[in-house]
């Protein structure tokens, strides 16, 4: 079995929208309003808002976070499409649907900024050294009550998962994503976007460090370029 390729959720949704629009254009049905494209666009815009809010990136030329996310999503899609497409009928609906989410994310953004300043939120660490594919280890939850750790591959174009190599050392359960690796103390979950998750509910600090060490070790071996 060859190594499966994984791409981020945002990239996957983006690709799907682009492919769907190309098919509609080929069939000369670009004017048809597809509900699947609409929900996929809403998903992308929401993800974009969350990314902007986490990074505290604001654009003074845009009236609010929702508009900023919509413009970025549109620009990104048009670059991939390589031809003009009128997204406005879809974005009209997305604006309506995402209004409340945008308000919530905007409010939480300020609270996150404050909590980070007070060092109450888990940290993330980028791993670049001696790896085929850089990745990030993100602590989930509050500093003194971490709920889990997640490894996220950072390759823009995606990467491959060397599952065969992992299977030489661990019993990998499941025939499809999400795969599960159960060790004596931990259960690692490998999903279709390359994320590896491990729950650390009620773990002692030393056990969390063990989980982090093993997660980093797994990510180093799992993420490859071919």
């Amino acid at each position: 079995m060859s190594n499966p390729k994984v791409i981020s959720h945002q990239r996957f949704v983006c690709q799907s929208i682009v492919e769907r629009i190309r098919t509609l254009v080929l069939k000369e049905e670009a004017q048809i309003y597809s509900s699947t494209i609409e929900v996929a666009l809403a998903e992308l815009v929401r993800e974009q808002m969350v990314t902007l809010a986490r990074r505290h990136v604001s654009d003074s030329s845009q009236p609010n976070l929702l508009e900023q996310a919509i413009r970025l999503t549109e620009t990104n899609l048009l670059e991939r499409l390589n031809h003009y497409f009128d997204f406005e009928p879809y974005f009209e609906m997305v604006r309506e649907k995402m209004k409340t989410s945008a308000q919530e994310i905007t409010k939480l953004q300020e609270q996150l900024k404050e909590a980070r300043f007070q060092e109450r939120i888990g940290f993330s660490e980028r791993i670049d050294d001696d790896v085929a594919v850089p990745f990030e280890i993100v602590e989930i939850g509050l500093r003194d009550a971490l709920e889990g750790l997640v490894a996220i591959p950072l390759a823009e174009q995606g990467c491959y998962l060397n599952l065969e190599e992992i299977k030489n050392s661990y019993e990998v359960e499941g025939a499809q994503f999400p795969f599960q690796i159960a060790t004596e103390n931990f259960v690692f979950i490998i999903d279709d976007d390359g994320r590896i998750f491990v729950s650390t509910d009620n773990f002692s600090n030393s056990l969390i460090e063990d989980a982090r060490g093993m997660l980093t070790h797994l990510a180093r071996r799992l993420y490859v370029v071919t």
Partner: protein
Amino acid sequence: MIQISLERRSLHLSRKEQALASAAAQRSTMQFQFQKQIAAKAVTYRPLNSIHIQPSALKFLIQKYSEQLVYKPLDEIQYWFAYSAGAFLEPGYVQLYYYAHLLSGKKIPPSKSAVAAIGEGTAGLLGQWLYQGRKLARPNHDYPDIVMEAQGKTLLIEAKATSGSVKQAENLIENDLARMAAYAFACAELDSRPVIGILVSTALIRHNHFHTYITEVVI
């Protein structure tokens, strides 16, 4: 490990049945006619091999697929099963009469959000494991619960769940069938790919054993 036993059926709807579904989705009086028509097709559920999943893997999938604001739904439901089993008479639990105000001859209900969240996580799991699907969107406060892509097809997945009987889980599908059929039919007309509507209804039998019915609506 959590065991999930499965039964599945596939409904191929004719044009007339799709039209009836559309009418039933609009008018409740047509619902009976639609259900009668589907019952006449006599498409029965067939058991599939049970699947097993680590609780922390299901927890991960609940976070991925649920929009319920509920903390640790698997723990919540385990606590409720412990209460329902009489375990609260043993040392180590809160004092009794906690639920006394709810007692009126009826069964004490668990958290609806926890049950719904587990149903959504289970539906996402089956979308990935049974259909090799990948999440395209998790619409907020919208229908259906999950939109996936699988081998060139669009999957529209609606999750249901109950802490009641297996029969109740089956009934939840019957009650939503017209709506799903009408929606899948409309989406198929507008989508550039084949569309399958999938209703996934899970009965929480025990904290570590669920039974799930799957109905595919093929347009």
